[in-house]
């Protein structure tokens, strides 16, 4: 990269906020190191950096906490990492409005801590909340177990400020909880992986913190029985805030409480409840009654520390994963996908771990590395079979993580058909030069 460019960047954000050389190692993805990492300290500086990059046609990779940096294909060309960590302020919180405006670089846990003091919370619990930033969580559409009741970013984001590829500062939505003026731009940027603009500020809906919250585990001998219990739970009067189904391997990653100290076969259903103490109490009792009808063991309480482990259990259960695949299927298909998916892998000599937000049909599976890194063929075969299973039932699969040797043989994203062309037209409208995360997203976007 030309020194002239780096000098301009340094002049814009200050030399201490431009990293080069060996300092860039935390920002290397798939062995590819960016030219530089730049950390603007204000909205105007973000726009100035993008203007400089646009002028030189240097790609820009927006970066929050880096928790989803390896999702998707690596950038086509090395460019600038644009880090948002200095934009980490809580801009405005009016408890009476149940809304908060934050800068994109604030971590989820820092925001939750600030809100907790005032009796409220953001009902979004993505993995790695200590590192994950609000901007990154929105860009990657990250979520956690409580999405069962409270939804995902699309249900919470009411306003967004972005800097687009032409360095324009654009606001979408607003600060009020109900708003249909103009197009719903917040939806456009959620899950766009930084390919349409750099999120610099967000306004989100909040909820009052519940009086009580409890997490319980129910063990089943067979996934199938757990699946039937979930169907019964979903059609009951209960209002769980999380419905998680894990195979025994993934459940072991939750800690001893979940498996009753006897990991091995079977499945664990983890259910969360919140509300008044009496409501939580009654629901736990009802759950026990309902689960018993489906051959479950006792309902065991889990420690609150288990919550953040749920979304990463499939991955954490595997010391070194060779691939992680994420599925979206119908809730009634979850148990069967988990069971058959594990069979398909086992037939190829692969060990797997499975965890799911079962009530909403989002499943994560990881494959143990062992031999797999030396021999990608069985991994590729299993992933291909998994994707076919999901698609046969009308669902989707995304290769959330894998080494390039695998990614080069198994597409990261599903084929999008006609909708993909529409997405490409949107990308072409918003980022005609392909400046933002080029090549990373669906359909080569």
């Amino acid at each position: 990269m030309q020194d002239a460019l780096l000098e301009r960047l340094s002049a814009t954000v200050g030399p201490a906020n431009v990293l080069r050389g060996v300092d860039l190692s935390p920002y290397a993805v798939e062995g590819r190191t960016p030219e530089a990492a730049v950390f603007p300290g204000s909205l105007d500086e973000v726009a100035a950096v993008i203007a400089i990059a646009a002028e030189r046609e240097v790609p820009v990779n927006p970066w929050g906490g880096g928790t989803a940096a390896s999702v998707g294909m690596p950038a086509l060309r090395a460019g600038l990492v644009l880090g948002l960590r200095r934009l980490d302020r809580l801009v405005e919180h009016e408890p009476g409005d149940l809304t908060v405006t934050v800068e994109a670089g604030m971590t989820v846990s820092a925001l939750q801590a600030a809100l907790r003091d005032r009796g409220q919370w953001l009902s979004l619990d993505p993995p790695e909340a200590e590192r994950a930033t609000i901007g990154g969580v929105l860009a990657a559409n990250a979520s956690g177990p409580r999405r069962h009741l409270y939804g995902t970013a699309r249900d919470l984001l009411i306003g967004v400020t972005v800097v687009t590829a032409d360095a324009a500062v654009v606001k979408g939505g607003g600060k009020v909880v109900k708003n249909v003026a103009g197009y719903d731009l917040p939806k456009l940027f959620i899950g766009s992986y930084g390919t349409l603009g750099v999120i610099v500020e967000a306004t989100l809906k909040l909820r009052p913190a519940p009086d009580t919250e409890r997490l319980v585990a129910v063990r089943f001998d067979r996934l199938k029985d757990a699946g039937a219990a979930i169907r019964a739970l979903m059609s009951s009067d209960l209002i769980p805030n999380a419905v998680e189904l894990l195979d025994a391997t993934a459940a072991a990653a939750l800690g001893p409480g979940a498996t009753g100290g006897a990991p091995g076969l079977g499945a664990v259903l983890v259910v969360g409840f919140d509300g008044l103490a009496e409501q939580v109490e009654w629901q736990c009792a009802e759950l026990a009654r309902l689960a018993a009808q489906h051959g479950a063991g006792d309902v065991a309480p889990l420690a609150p520390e288990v919550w953040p482990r749920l979304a990463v259990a499939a991955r954490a259960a595997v010391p070194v994963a060779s691939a992680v695949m994420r599925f979206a299927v119908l809730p009634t298909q979850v148990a069967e996908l988990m069971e058959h998916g594990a069979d398909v892998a086992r037939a190829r000599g692969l060990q797997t771990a499975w965890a799911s937000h079962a009530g909403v049909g989002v499943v994560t599976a990881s494959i143990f590395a062992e031999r797999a890194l030396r021999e990608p063929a069985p991994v590729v075969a299993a992933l291909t079979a998994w994707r076919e299973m999901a698609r046969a039932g009308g669902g989707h699969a995304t290769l959330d993580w894998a080494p390039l040797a695998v990614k080069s043989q198994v597409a990261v994203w599903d084929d999008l058909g006609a909708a993909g062309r529409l997405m490409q037209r949107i990308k072409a409208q918003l980022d005609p030069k392909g400046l933002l995360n080029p090549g990373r997203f669906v359909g080569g976007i």
Partner: protein
Amino acid sequence: MATLTAARKTGLRRELEAIVGPGAVLSDPDELLVYESDGLTLFRALADFVVFPTSAEHVAAVVKLAARERLPFVARGAGTGLSGGCLPAEGGIVISLMRMNRVLEVDYANQLAVVEPGLVNLHLSWKVGPKGYYYAPDPSSQQACTIGGNIANNSGGPHTLKYGVTTNHVLGLEVVLPDGEIVWLGGRTRETPGYDLAGVFVGSEGTFGIATKIVVRILKKPQAVKTVLAVFGDVDQASAAVSAIIARGLVPAAVEMIDQLTIQAVEDAFGCGYPRDAAAALLVELDGLLVGLDAQAEQIVQACRDSGAREVRTARDESERALLWKGRKSAFGAYGRISPAYMVMDGVIPRTKLPYVLRRVNEIVAAHGLRVGNVFHAGDGNLHPNILYDPRKPGEEARVVEAGAAIMKVCAGVGGSISGEHGIGLEKSDFMPFIFSAADLALMHRLKSAFNPTGLCNPGKIFPTKKSCVEVGPVAYKPHAIEEQGLAQRF
């Protein structure tokens, strides 16, 4: 705006009939009159044709024909919209979805339904009700409005405070794009790869294409419901009670406010049990588990009493509850009995600004020599000031429009929005700069260009326009054709 030559019109009619069938095309000016406006009769525009497709293939073929002929086209549901969004502002073809009104599939185990766009909102809840489910978004026009229209406007309703608006309940859509291609946006699963095009489509006011199938979530009916009516001698106290409820950490299903003028109109018309001398009333509904509901209702009662409510009562049974809701939902109809006409406004403000903004609304309307009734979703700050007027009095309608613009400026000024659920349509396109910069609008326009590059799909809406060839804008009131025949009244 009949600008087509007679010969071309005859030819087009023949082609349209070949697509949708001979009984499904209107082109006689008398028949087209019914489609010249929506619920906001200030705006009128005539189409050249109205067609009634019965399949996505029909819609696609009509759209392709329109694209070939460079004729503008617009989708229309029940026509209950309140911003002129479905008007054929520049002539062309109105594509009525009213014959595509089936529930195609209900998957109770996965809590979703696949419906056609012309399905009446309430009919979906009727369909799934016997099995204990319902469709949550409940606009006040839900007895007539369609799911497709709800998609266009991202419609809300009283219970969206807890359950979210239309977009939170739509999983996927089959859409005919403005070039006639049929695509799926989103799907049945909670995540689909790529951009959230279903999320972007909802609320695009018919400018991105025409939905022909819609996958919506259906919810389990709550185990128990409790409805509380709190009566106040002062509007500020009622506003304060809304904040007090939120401050206690409660999330009611609905918090609706009804002011004195509206209460009196409703009582005159229907006798729903609201005290006529109250300055304002709050209708608060809680739902969820039976366990704990009484305790939560008691919290509501206390919050209202602490804020100065002079009377708080809880509906004793379903019939009492239904009567209270009838009062709320029929308020618009009741205005018709006390005023020859009224204009429904729609704005949103942060909840905490409620006392200030309500005062300003009343001042503004009074300064224009008019009366206003307020009935609105107080819990989420979504105001509906309804300005009463007499269109036969010269100049009065112009003052209504002026007052409306001033109210929108107040909403924008406190960090709010110019529409919470009715949409921008034709009515508010020139208000967009109140809350959006040129850069914001430019990005929206690029997004529109990706979906609708020719601009033929519902032209003239949302964006501030140099006024088009047709005279769209406030015109002298005249009753809608079906009003004149006594078939309908304005809500």
